[in-house]
């Protein structure tokens, strides 16, 4: 094991503990971190084997190293993340995980005594492929008027297959008449982005 891999694995272990404490959810991470070559098409991946892979160049960059490790660690606690659920609910997984990463990272980084320029973190956020998912989730959250931390930490604890229905139920309990119809229209609109066609 290289020094880079060993250091990253130790950091990932610290993050695992913090994510478990914050979310109250058990991590399924296997404890193995693979260092991917720069030819990989992904910054990082939480595999179905529950190993985590992160590209070597990402691990060498102070800013992206941490955001990627937190993101992948959150997949490891995401409830009932399986292929069937993922295939049709990718935005309900990736959007929720990425936005939760943005919410939690300040707590995690302060606790680990890591200082990263906020402007640099916002640059990374701005260039994420998951921003369309987050935009739709934020429209739903704003309509329901739920506090940001509660909305995402609640969703991550709900089985992936049931997240859309869970949010639908909250709106249906809250709105009646034309407001209820507007809510369903908004949710269906969001699901055109958050869910994948079969």
């Amino acid at each position, binding site marked *: 094991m290289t020094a880079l891999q060993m250091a990253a694995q130790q950091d990932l272990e610290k993050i695992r503990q913090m994510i478990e404490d914050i979310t109250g959810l058990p991590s399924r991470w296997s404890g193995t971190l693979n260092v991917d070559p720069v030819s990989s098409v*992904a*910054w990082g991946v939480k*595999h179905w084997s529950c190993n985590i892979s992160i590209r070597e160049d990402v691990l060498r960059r102070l800013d992206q190293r941490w955001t990627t490790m937190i993101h992948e660690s959150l997949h490891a606690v995401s409830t009932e993340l399986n292929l069937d659920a993922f295939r049709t609910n990718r935005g309900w997984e990736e959007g929720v995980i990425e936005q939760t990463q943005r919410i939690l990272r300040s707590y995690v980084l302060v606790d680990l005594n890591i200082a990263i320029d906020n402007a640099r973190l916002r640059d990374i956020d701005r260039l994420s492929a998951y921003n369309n998912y987050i935009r739709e989730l934020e429209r739903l959250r704003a309509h329901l008027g739920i506090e940001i931390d509660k909305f995402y930490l609640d969703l991550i604890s709900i089985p992936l297959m049931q997240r859309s229905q869970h949010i639908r139920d909250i709106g249906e309990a809250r709105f009646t008449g034309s407001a209820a119809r507007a809510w369903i229209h908004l949710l269906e609109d969001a699901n055109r982005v958050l869910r994948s066609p079969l």
Partner: protein
Amino acid sequence: MTLEEQRQVLVNQMLYATTEEEVDAAMRAAHAWLQKHPNDPMILSAGEQLVMMAEGLKLEKSTLHQNTA
């Protein structure tokens, strides 16, 4: 199409690939794009989802083979 539009088409191809053929095509397109634009953050963030689908489909296929062997 502008470069930005081409990138968005590829991102959508990567995010919504569902069948083995779609995933393979998206993977080839992503590799080709990264040859020309290494470290493109939007493509490399979408890559995570594509790798998860690719691995999931392979696992599903091998389980199916085991169950039917």
